[in-house]
């Protein structure tokens, strides 16, 4: 199902922005209030609940033992999955993941994977035979805009919270966590800028997403390098706008990383 927004609201939001203002009073480079809670589940090996404004995303990390990929015999395996469950929004529907759900999971996955933030080689148990499989499951609970940033922040928080369970006689004892952490060696974060008319604003709320022309998400590492990007929306960006967003994202990334 599609969210519908009236023409009046569209014009209102756009004209406010032309005056340098946002509906909820934020500056163009401001996030809504961010709350990150780690360790909120005892069944997951790692977990986090992230709130950005009224958007709520829970991320759980589960570990299992499985086979490595044939071309990476000494590496653990990362799998990122998202669910836009109908509890979280009147527009989310039951059934297999749609293109938005798949895009969300894949963009978060790229931020984690391409930053090399998990040292996957440390997750090898027996080369070519047994490795840890890391499942990152993104469970959106309340959708009020900007799922990319909330989900990627929650994923890294949950990975940082993760403790390996005990293995005994080849069986995983999920009830008994060890003190051993996942080898997380970087903290990539994703920042999303929406374009509405000629204005470029951070962290679009749901209302802003409904009227935006385009969206650009940039994942940056602790070193300030770029590890993933994704444009969304049927609008366009100029070269200059993109370079501007990249600069602002590198800065904002530092701010966001403090919540981890």
């Amino acid at each position, binding site marked *: 199902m599609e969210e519908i927004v009236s023409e009046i609201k569209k014009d209102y939001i756009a004209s406010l922005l032309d005056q340098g203002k946002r509906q909820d009073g934020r500056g163009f480079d401001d996030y809504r209030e961010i709350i990150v809670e780690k360790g909120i589940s005892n069944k997951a090996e790692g977990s986090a609940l992230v709130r950005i404004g009224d958007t709520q995303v829970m991320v759980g990390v589960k570990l299992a033992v499985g086979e490595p990929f044939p071309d990476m015999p000494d590496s653990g395996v990362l799998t990122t999955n998202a669910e836009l*469950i109908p509890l979280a929004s009147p527009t989310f529907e039951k059934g297999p993941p749609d293109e938005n759900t798949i895009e969300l999971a894949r963009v978060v996955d790229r931020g984690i994977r391409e930053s090399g933030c998990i040292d996957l080689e440390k997750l090898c148990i027996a080369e070519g035979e047994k490795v840890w499989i890391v499942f990152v499951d993104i469970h959106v609970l309340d959708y009020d805009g900007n799922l990319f940033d909330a989900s990627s922040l929650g994923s890294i928080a949950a990975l940082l919270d993760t403790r390996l369970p005990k293995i005994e006689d080849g069986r995983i004892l999920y009830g008994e966590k060890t003190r051993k952490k996942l080898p997380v060696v970087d903290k990539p974060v994703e920042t999303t800028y929406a374009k509405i008319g000629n204005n470029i604003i951070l962290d679009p709320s749901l209302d802003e997403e409904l009227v935006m022309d385009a969206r650009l998400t940039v994942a940056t590492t602790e070193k300030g390098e770029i590890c993933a990007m994704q444009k969304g929306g049927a609008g366009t960006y100029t070269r200059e706008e993109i370079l501007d967003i990249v600069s602002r994202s590198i800065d904002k990334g530092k701010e966001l990383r403090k919540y981890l």
Partner: protein
Amino acid sequence: MKIGQPEKFIIDGKRLDGRKPDEMREVKIQAGVLKRADGSALVEWGGNKVIAACYGPREVHPRHLAKSDKAILRCTYNMAPFSVSDRKRPGPDRRSVEISKVTRLALEPVIFTNLYPRTTIDVFIEVLQANAGTRCTGITAASVALADAGIPMRDLVPACAAGKVGGEVVLDLFDIEDNYGEADLPVALIPKNNEITLLQMDGNFTKKEFEKALDLAIQGCMKIYELQKGALRERYGGE
């Protein structure tokens, strides 16, 4: 014997988690925890964390499901992949299809569906952390979410299970008791007139044990009922 089965379930009158046989785990209920949903509730019940949302009355899709004389009620019970020890694959499995069905039948008797013909009332239950008793936790949360959404109801529907472990009838099994115990009996109740809307059982009861367990479960429901009302008072004030 299943791997991991404890030798005894009750030692010196105490269960493995320290409770007495007729003691319930700690339960916390909070109404109105989501912005987008029309109504919502979070229930933490021992090691269970379950969130429920209600949307509606709203238009039915696909339309041919609509009824000309009443609202339809749809319930979806779902477990988050990380809510259990062995990661659950996303999507409905046979167990959750059955639980969704009995949840709907447990709630339907209290809803004045005839007030909203041609609409649907949708209830979504998400298990975020599971520790035995999620269906009762879900029904408990769902009926608070329905109330939070302002759906007119005859009464709330609390739910609670009794069971049998180590030969003894006990209230509200936790996961070790559920996995290795001898019987489980989840019950949902309309407290106003003592009508039972959910009843399932599996395991092994004599007729006498069954009667004892049923009465214990009903008592459990009554305790949950007070907590449900408390959560709604907390949110909406009132006497």
